């Protein structure tokens, strides 16, 4: 056994120990089972009027006291969006969305500017508790000594209400702000990079986001800085009929490093909710960005009623030589998922990674995957996709590996595994490979399997009930991806897989 494997096993053991130590915190998280995530809290909202036109865009911009250039940028995006059409190439059955029948801006009325989460509205803290936020954060919140530091930039209903650890981050020179703050405080930085990785007219949903994005996060890591803590943001949709348009921009300067965690869940609701986020990452020479997501928006009920429409554009630019961007996602929520976190590998010897678990149950539909665009010589990418389908759901992996004519010695390895539970669900793999340079080495492996009766009986004979057995086998199937998650996220993700499969067996 190699040292590397040993180290990983040790980490796994430590994780088990850690879980043990945090039994109580865990118990709190356990409570957030089934869809206890489905509730509504009653912080007062201030709405923009229903509907979408230039005035809506102006209202949002004014509300956020944005500079003129930002408003112009939004208006331009809005006009572009109006001339675009909703994409229809995904294997998704998307109901007509009436963009005029939604609110585009809502914020909590109390809007405190706080330095730490200790000062956060107890109502909001209660919400986090219900969400079962990762243990590390709970420790931090409880002030546990020696707790791993995770900075939480809480995005509550479109508006950031608190940012913790700002001082320590500032000492390191790291900028970690809500994007609205950053637009005011660091206009030159934001202006320089906003829309550079995902151009306004990239796609229908990205253009919409540019016009009406409500809030989000800006991260800037200066040259040579290793971000002293994992950065983490919790999103939550909380207002009836509020489209959620988050905007995230992360810039890692030369030789810097940052790990960013994004997790979300949404309350139970009848009305469908639209979510169209844009995330842009830029890594300069020798910089590394690790971006992890656990996505658990409300998936709709077992009859396919309700649930979030999640149309997300996530893209990273490896601008410098030897830069690295790594996407890890665990997607269990949303009624419809349309999401392809991608890497544009311009830097020589740059590295792109995509690790994904997408689980669909009942009537959920997911069309997700990645694009690895190799323009830099010697650039490498790895794609590991694990699709799990149950119920009457449909789960598609869609991935593009493109090698430009000048990119010598590119390597890609792709593995797509699908696991089917039952025989009323669908799993599809749609790989596109475009190679314009003959020196490229591209490998693609794909498997489709079912949980075998042998495995089920074996696990049950050892003492696991049917759901526990399925959950164990599914977690094993997803292991390669789950181990890429930061530890506190991995625990939550395993739970999510189990919760999301409830009712899919027997």
């Amino acid at each position, binding site marked *: 056994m190699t040292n590397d494997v040993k180290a990983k096993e040790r980490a796994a053991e430590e994780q088990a120990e850690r879980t043990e130590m945090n039994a109580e915190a865990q118990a709190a998280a356990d409570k957030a089972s089934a869809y206890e995530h489905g509730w509504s809290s009653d912080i007062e909202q201030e709405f923009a009027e229903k509907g979408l036109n230039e005035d809506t865009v102006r209202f949002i911009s004014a509300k956020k006291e944005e500079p003129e250039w930002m408003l112009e940028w939004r208006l331009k995006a809005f006009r572009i969006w109006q001339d675009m059409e909703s994409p229809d190439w995904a294997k998704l059955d998307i109901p007509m969305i009436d963009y005029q029948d939604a609110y585009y801006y809502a914020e909590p009325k109390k809007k405190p500017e706080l330095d730490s989460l200790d000062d956060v509205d107890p109502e909001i803290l209660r919400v986090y508790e219900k969400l079962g936020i990762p243990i590390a954060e709970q420790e931090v919140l409880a002030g546990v000594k020696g707790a791993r530091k995770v900075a939480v930039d809480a995005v509550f209903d479109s508006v950031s209400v608190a940012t913790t650890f700002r001082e320590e981050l500032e000492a390191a020179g790291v900028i970690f702000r809500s994007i609205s703050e950053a637009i005011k405080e660091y206009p030159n930085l934001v202006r320089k990079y906003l829309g550079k990785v995902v151009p306004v007219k990239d796609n229908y949903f990205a253009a919409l986001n540019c016009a009406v994005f409500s809030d989000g996060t800006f991260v800037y890591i200066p040259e040579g800085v290793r971000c002293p803590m994992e950065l983490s943001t919790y999103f939550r949709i909380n207002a009836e009929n509020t489209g959620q348009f988050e905007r995230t921009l992360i810039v890692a300067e030369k030789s810097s490093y940052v790990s960013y965690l994004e997790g979300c869940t949404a309350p139970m609701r009848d009305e469908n909710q639209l979510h169209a986020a844009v995330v842009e990452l830029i890594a300069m020479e020798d910089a590394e960005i690790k971006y992890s997501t656990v996505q658990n928006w409300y998936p709709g009920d077992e009859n396919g009623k309700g649930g979030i429409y999640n149309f997300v554009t996530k893209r990273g630019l490896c601008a410098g030589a030897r830069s690295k961007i790594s996407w890890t996602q665990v997607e269990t929520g949303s009624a419809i998922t349309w999401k392809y976190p991608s890497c544009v590998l311009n830097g020589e010897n740059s590295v792109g990674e995509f690790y994904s678990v997408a689980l669909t149950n009942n009537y959920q539909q997911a069309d997700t995957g990645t694009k690895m665009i190799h323009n830099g010589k010697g650039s490498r990418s790895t794609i590991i996709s694990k699709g799990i389908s149950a119920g009457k759901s449909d789960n598609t992996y869609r991935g593009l590996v493109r090698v430009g004519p000048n990119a010598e010695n590119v390597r890609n390895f792709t593995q797509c595994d699908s696991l089917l539970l039952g025989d009323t669900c669908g799993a599809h793999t749609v790989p596109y490979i475009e190679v314009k340079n003959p020196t490229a080495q591209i490998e693609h492996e794909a498997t489709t399997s079912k949980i075998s*009766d042998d495995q089920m009986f*074996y696990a049950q004979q*050892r003492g696991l009930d049917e759901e526990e057995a399925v959950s164990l086998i599914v977690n094993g199937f997803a292991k390669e991806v789950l181990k890429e998650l930061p530890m506190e996220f991995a625990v939550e993700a395993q739970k999510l897989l189990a919760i999301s499969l409830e009712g899919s067996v027997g």
Partner: protein
Amino acid sequence: MLKIENLHATVGDTEILTGLSLEINAGEVHAIMGPNGAGKSTLAYVLGGRDGYEVTQGSATFNGQDILDMDPHERAALGLFLGFQYPVEIPGVSNLQFLRESLNSQRKSRGEEPLSGGAFIKLAKEKAALLKMDMEMLKRAVNVGFSGGEKKRNEMVQMGILDPQLAILDETDSGLDIDALRTVGSGINAIMRDEKKAVLLITHYQRLLEEVKPDFVHVLARGRIVKTGGPELAVQLEEQGYEAIAA
């Protein structure tokens, strides 16, 4: 402890068990021998509660409780353990994780507290040592890439950790080398030789029975017990074959 009466069971449309009766008391070791396809593994599966193995007649009780209507995990929690003839691979799940979750699920069903991480690792180390199994093996995925003999030894480590009342061991000796057979034999004795426990060994060979001495030897043929005797019956079978004895 285990009482089986006139058990009939079908797989698909075929009746495999055709009126099998067997009684096992605490403190006893029983051996079942019989020709290929006689229904030995089927008996183990039926007792374990496997889907697709339908009981059409007869009864089976465990400590007086009817187990035939119970789910497999409920029977496991009562203390019934099956050593599989063909242990199953579970990719991505380490043996330690598998066993810890299994053990704690059993404990939960019995209203006991879960075992802590530290206590579990200690227990696992102890049982692995008993069966001369490297702990590193237990960190690997369940049976994935294990040799035939390693899989069988792993079954015994699992038995040691789960500590059942009744162990039904289906050809645990097949595929073991000479030293491993001895280790497994003494492992079974160490774990299961107890006045409160019992063992049912399914085997084709006399060799294991020299390690784990049975109180009773049964011949299972055509879906039922056709002959019962003491340890000498196993010797006789090995010399003369089933044809002569079970015909």
